[in-house]
């Protein structure tokens, strides 16, 4: 009787323990709740930019999420600019990259820099996406139409119509001082970007 009771207790304990570990995991974060579309591993780079450090950054005019026009050349003489192209809204790495820059605001501002987030998605999509992120301190602009025209100017439009995950640092003279056309599947390391900004101060 005692032995069977012990077995029952052991069984009950194991059953409860398994439930504890497996069922208390719940994907409540939006990055894991099925809202995010995971395209799986993609070709790391699918374009070939000719832009290099020392070139003049191609100018552009794009609408931000409030309908305002953002013009790159308007920052000349005023601010350094970090152009952050991301491939697509609602995808895994992109959905984290800008929230990371969002909490690093001081690091950008310490080097007199602004970030401009650029995506080929349309404004309503970007609006929903950025709202879900909780908002961002920097402007996000849509390169939707003519589709990917700015990404094409920068030589980073991929064959599927998305852009590369790319960073360009443009100084106050409008000159490109840093480029990183990154593996689309990976997050660029923040310190590489901040170090590039540090060099602008020298």
């Amino acid at each position, binding site marked *: 009787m005692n032995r069977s009771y012990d077995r029952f*207790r052991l069984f*009950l*304990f194991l059953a*409860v*323990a398994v*439930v*504890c*570990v*497996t*069922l*208390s*995991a*719940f*994907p*409540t*974060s*939006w*990055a*894991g*709740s099925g809202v995010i579309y995971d395209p799986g591993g993609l070709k790391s780079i699918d374009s070939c930019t000719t832009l290099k450090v020392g070139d003049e950054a191609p100018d552009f005019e794009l609408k931000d999420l409030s309908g305002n026009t953002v013009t790159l050349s308007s920052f000349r003489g005023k601010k350094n600019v970090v152009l952050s192209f991301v491939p697509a809204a609602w995808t895994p790495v992109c*959905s*984290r*990259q800008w*929230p*990371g820059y*969002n*909490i*690093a605001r001081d*690091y950008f501002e310490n080097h007199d820099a602004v970030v401009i987030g650029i995506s080929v998605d349309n404004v309503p999509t970007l609006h929903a996406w950025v709202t879900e*992120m*909780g908002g961002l301190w920097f402007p996000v602009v849509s390169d939707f139409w003519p589709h990917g025209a700015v990404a094409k100017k920068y030589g980073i439009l991929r064959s599927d119509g998305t852009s590369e995950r790319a960073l360009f640092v443009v100084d106050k003279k409008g000159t490109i001082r840093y480029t990183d056309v990154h593996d689309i599947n990976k*997050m660029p*390391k*923040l*310190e590489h970007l*901040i170090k590039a900004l540090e060099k602008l101060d020298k």
Partner: protein
Amino acid sequence: MTGLRLACVWVALAMVLQGPAALAAQFTVDEAALNRLEFPVPENGKERAYLGLSGNNTFRLPSVRVPILFVEIFSMYCPICQSEAPKINELYTRIQKSPTLKDKVKMVGIGIGNTPFEVEVFRKKFEIPFPLFSDEDFSVEKISRQRIRTPTFLVLEVEQGNKVRILDALVGRIEDIAGLVENLEQTKGK
């Protein structure tokens, strides 16, 4: 019977913390892999004292001198980790203020995929009071066959110098900090 009681406490906690979506989710942890994780001993003396560590090399989780270790797996890029940070700081404060928990539960954070610089950005922004470690190489991914979501919280029982045993794994927001504190108070560590 202690084990059964302990398990029941954490089942109750799981019910407090989880929503209906939980039923579809599964998250299992490979304890052997968890015990193999290695981190540098913090340079900061206050953090070394908090964790009861010495030396300048690396340590494994069973070396932390505490009965219960609460681990947050986070990323500085994760918006949920960012919005939850004040709440997790509150958990730390409650633990430190509780006479029963102060020496029983310690907290650490592991920045999955984050460089030390990125971990530092997170620490500074949210004034995280407990030790954070960089896991630039995603070594934490080895503890589960499932993809590690952030934030993930592990409640570990520490068998001093030998191994850690998982009491619970929680993924996502923690809705009820007071309930979690209550359950930590009832949990008996070794």
